[in-house]
């Protein structure tokens, strides 16, 4: 990329940045406490007399809270929350969702995309310096690739449907209208709810499949100290570099939180024996949203680095094999180890049988 192009693109990115900086706060931080849904009625109307209900419910509000923080009594009606008089946590959850979750997740997603765009402009595409050698090294087994891609595809579907459910009201809905958005969100919710458990299973399988080689060591500290070689320079790495390991552990920890909280919310009318209270649903939704926005944002980095950022990276997960020069440049310690164990010559002769064998041993 020449200088003129770069300057032009920089300008474009700053234009986008200023656009979001102007529009987002106006649209969402303008008046978070404004009543929602009033079209033409009560907004303009005033009570002449104070409603006795406010005093009554204020008195109810003073009552003692039960174990789950709600004000409850007894009711002949049986059903979820039937005996609850006031769901105390509801207001807090609502405030958090409207004034924190929605704007901040927008900032997080937009900000990450901007950072990636800036990184692309500064660094450009990361090429294999020595060029391709043409020699292939087995990097991932068929099973590893199957697990990775099933998790990846499910992740993308869950991510998109989740973002539609969280932010769609402020993004997609004004564009397509309420009816169409309701239709999209309804099927999005179905997909999200039914694929969630499948994702959970595959995610756990993936964590076990990739745990080998993903434990941190001193090399990773040095790798992080050098910024992972992101801004040029070289940072040594084994089979996985510090960034990949960090992504693994973020996925493992935040992923577990998201999976658990998601499963709690997923079958409210099937798992009635757990007696999940409204408060627990609110907490689960909080953890689910925060955890998934976190993973979602970090995944942008992983997806970018794994696809268009770096020459030779995508093919490793696509075909299971990487170029030997790519391995030498980005995973030098792994390359040396393979060389030492004499596994490289074996792969160079491309003896498929031995690679399949190693696939089964992993």
């Amino acid at each position, binding site marked *: 990329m020449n200088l003129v192009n770069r300057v032009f693109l920089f300008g474009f990115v700053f234009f986008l940045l200023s656009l979001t900086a102007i529009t987002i706060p106006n649209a969402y931080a303008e008046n978070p406490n404004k009543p929602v849904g009033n079209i033409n009625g009560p907004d303009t109307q005033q009570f002449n007399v104070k409603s006795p209900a406010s005093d009554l419910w204020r008195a109810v509000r003073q009552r003692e809270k039960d174990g789950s923080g709600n004000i409850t009594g007894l009711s002949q009606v049986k059903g979820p929350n039937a005996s609850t008089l006031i769901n105390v946590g509801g207001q807090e959850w609502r405030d958090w969702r409207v004034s924190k979750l929605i704007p901040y997740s927008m900032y997080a997603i937009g900000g990450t995309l901007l950072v990636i765009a800036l990184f692309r402009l500064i660094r450009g595409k990361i090429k294999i310096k020595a060029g391709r050698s043409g020699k292939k090294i087995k990097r991932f087994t068929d099973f590893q690739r199957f697990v990775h891609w099933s998790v990846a595809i499910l992740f993308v579907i869950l991510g998109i449907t989740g973002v539609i459910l969280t932010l769609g009201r402020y993004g997609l809905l004004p564009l397509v209208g309420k009816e169409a958005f309701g239709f999209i969100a309804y099927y999005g919710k179905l997909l999200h709810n039914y694929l969630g458990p499948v994702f959970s299973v595959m995610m756990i399988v993936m964590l076990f499949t990739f745990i080998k080689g993903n434990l941190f060591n001193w090399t990773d500290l040095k790798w992080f100290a050098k910024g992972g070689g992101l801004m040029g320079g070289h940072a040594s790495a084994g089979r996985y570099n510090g960034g990949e390991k960090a992504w693994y552990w973020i996925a493992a920890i935040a992923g577990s939180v998201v999976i658990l909280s998601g499963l709690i*919310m997923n079958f409210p009318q099937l798992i009635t024996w757990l007696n999940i209270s409204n408060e627990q649903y609110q907490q689960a939704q909080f953890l689910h949203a925060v955890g998934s926005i976190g993973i979602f944002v970090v995944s942008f980095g992983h997806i970018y680095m794994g696809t268009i950022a770096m020459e030779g990276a995508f093919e490793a997960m696509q075909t299971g094999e990487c170029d030997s020069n790519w391995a030498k440049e980005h995973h030098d310690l792994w390359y040396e180890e393979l060389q030492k164990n004499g596994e490289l010559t074996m792969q160079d002769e491309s003896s498929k049988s031995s690679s399949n064998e190693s696939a089964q041993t992993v």
Partner: protein
Amino acid sequence: MAANVKFYCDSERCIECNACVTACKNENEVPWGINRRRVVTVKDGEPGERSLSVACMHCTDAPCAAVCPVDCFYTTDNGIVLHDKDICIGCGYCSYACPFGAPQFPTSGAFASRGKMDKCTFCAGGPEETGSADEYKKYGANRLAEGKLPLCAEMCATKALLAGDANMVSDIYRKRVVSRSMSTISSSAIQKGGFNPQ
């Protein structure tokens, strides 16, 4: 006429007969497991026992509408909070946010997932054509369009549950408070001097 309607349940009068619950179920033909209205009793069997009939309170700043991911709620000219079941996706967020436990969910689809939300409409139907069969099927009766008030309040035996224009409800309640204090004063006089009607 754009009144601002409200419910009010007089805890001094409610006797926990659950007739409002039954009336609501019958009038709106709500499915099993859906309770648009319920009676909750506190201090059951103890001195100071009180009961309250609870349903959607048609909040001015409704939390359900604020958190709905598909924006399916709307407020009518009368201040009634209604929702559109064609848009609702049954996510349950309204029930997380609602202080009064008004949103109800039927079971539909695989693994007992939530169906479209159902709640008290103040007997005002829904966004479908007024009086149509569709409206009745989805949202229940539209008594307001017929010039009637919600059945739960209209047939309350002790007139504990009041529904209607907020100012009228307040007026009725204020008169009750006055007469109650009068009776308290007179009864204390009787207790002191004995009952001597002459």
